[in-house]
């Protein structure tokens, strides 16, 4: 693809490659643009919010209380822009059922609201959510907001969900609310046999307004 100098300047500025239009050669501009293009990230696919979002959740990365039944789970990730930049001060709201598939509507158990630090990281401990009759798959809800970015509402799913029968590539469509295979993440078991937990990584990519 050949781009005129004006187009290159415009694209490079849009990508954050340039902050001023210095006297750069078109070849240098093209190289800078192509390099930045490589770091572009696809926005995280959206999924439905509902039905049990609850406002004003506490900021509590330890959602799992000591003694809570269910498989312990730790989810980690970072919040990026689609330009590949980390987003500090993003608000990540998370809610899920307990291991039996029940949402806490009276209180805030398994609900939290995290703010990303400068490195864009977030992490929380929980339990693997249960299945419930109206939904096919285990899932964790996310609502992510950050100034200058489109709000992201999505859900995290688990490749180990029995519904997928070991083949999430083929069977993720069994839940009509799973909008993309990208939302189904691998699960690894971490720790010694006496203190084992499931670990999942879920990066979140927001689009600029």
């Amino acid at each position: 693809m050949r781009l005129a100098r004006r187009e290159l300047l415009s694209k490079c500025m849009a990508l954050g490659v340039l902050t001023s239009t210095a006297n750069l050669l078109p070849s240098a501009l093209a190289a800078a643009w192509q390099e930045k293009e490589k770091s572009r990230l696809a926005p995280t696919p959206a999924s439905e919010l509902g039905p049990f979002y609850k406002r004003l959740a506490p900021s509590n990365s330890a959602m799992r209380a000591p003694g809570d039944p269910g498989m312990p789970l730790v989810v980690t990730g970072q919040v990026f822009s689609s330009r590949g930049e980390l987003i500090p001060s993003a608000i990540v709201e998370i809610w899920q059922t307990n291991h039996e598939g029940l949402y806490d509507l009276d209180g805030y158990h398994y609900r939290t609201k995290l703010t990303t630090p400068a490195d864009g990281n977030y992490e929380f401990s929980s339990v693997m959510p249960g299945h419930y009759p109206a939904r096919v798959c285990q899932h964790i809800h996310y609502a992510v907001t950050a100034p200058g970015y489109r709000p992201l509402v999505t859900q995290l799913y688990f490749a180990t969900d029995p519904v997928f029968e070991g083949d999430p590539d083929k069977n993720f469509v069994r839940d009509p609310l799973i909008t993309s295979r990208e939302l189904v993440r691998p699960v690894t078991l971490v720790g010694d046999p006496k203190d084992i937990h499931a670990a999942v990584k879920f990066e979140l990519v927001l689009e600029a307004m």
Partner: protein
Amino acid sequence: MTGAARWITTAVAVLISSFAHRAMAEDLRKLVTISTPEKISTVSVCGTTGLVAGAAHDGAIHVWKLPSGEQVASWKSGAPVSALACSFDGKWLAIGDEDGAVKITDPAGKFVRMFAIAHAAVDNVAFAPDGSLLAVGTHENPVQLWNPGTGLRVAELHTDFSGSTSVDFAPDSSLVATADADTAIRIYDRNGKLKASYTGLLLEPFAISFRPNGKEVVVGGADSTLSILSAEDGQLIRRLPKSPDPIFNAVVLPDGDRVLSLQVDAATVRNFSVTLWNLGTNERRDVAVAGKHLIGYGEISNHQPVMFTVDSDSSLTAWAIPD
């Protein structure tokens, strides 16, 4: 169909396979039962014209006369139908589909125009009583107001994130109220200018309905109760005592004092009920039993309020709600 409604539809599929047929409570009078080859998932009453339209997810649209149940039109829409509304004068149907489009037809199925709304399924559509506006909602984005006569978009409303679960117009069409997934209740003028909002709900509201005076709205939701708000300033007037289960649909009846609601037990998805609330006395009582799914409400020609249920054999029944 709202996100909540989509959730309920899935739940009802479970319910229908779980419950045997049981009689409705005695205070409802059966008007007519209509057999359809497809399972009707949504109905809309065309004002007081005596017409009611129904749609199945596969795109089948039917229009019947009430109370006879005589079919006056039937056709297949091009895409799976996710929302349906009939204008109060019976002139137009708005058919929202899974592909993010809204088609306007006449009640015989003649195409009038189409709006491309979004890349997501259309969750709900609602006509203003005077027919001058059509509200269109998707689960991802705020409600849009369209002029169904010109096909022009009038405004896009606002949420902090996600879309709206329910929308209703004031009886004089001067205001539109939205129950939003970010838990706010917002009230706009007919140009889409925000006039008032209420952010005191913690859990999602799923239903909003104007009282006939146009000055108050009634909201039901995951908090399992009804809240009465001022449509003028958005302030909470009062809340009714909680019911056992979240409220997924609620409409104020023509007398202005009673509300018809649908509840589903969020924990088990085993208990499903239709309830009549009295806003004056705070009383509530179940009027239907499990195994039937409330899919619509309206008034027919003699201002008789009716509700519609679909049964496990896909038959559609219209019930008269007594005074």
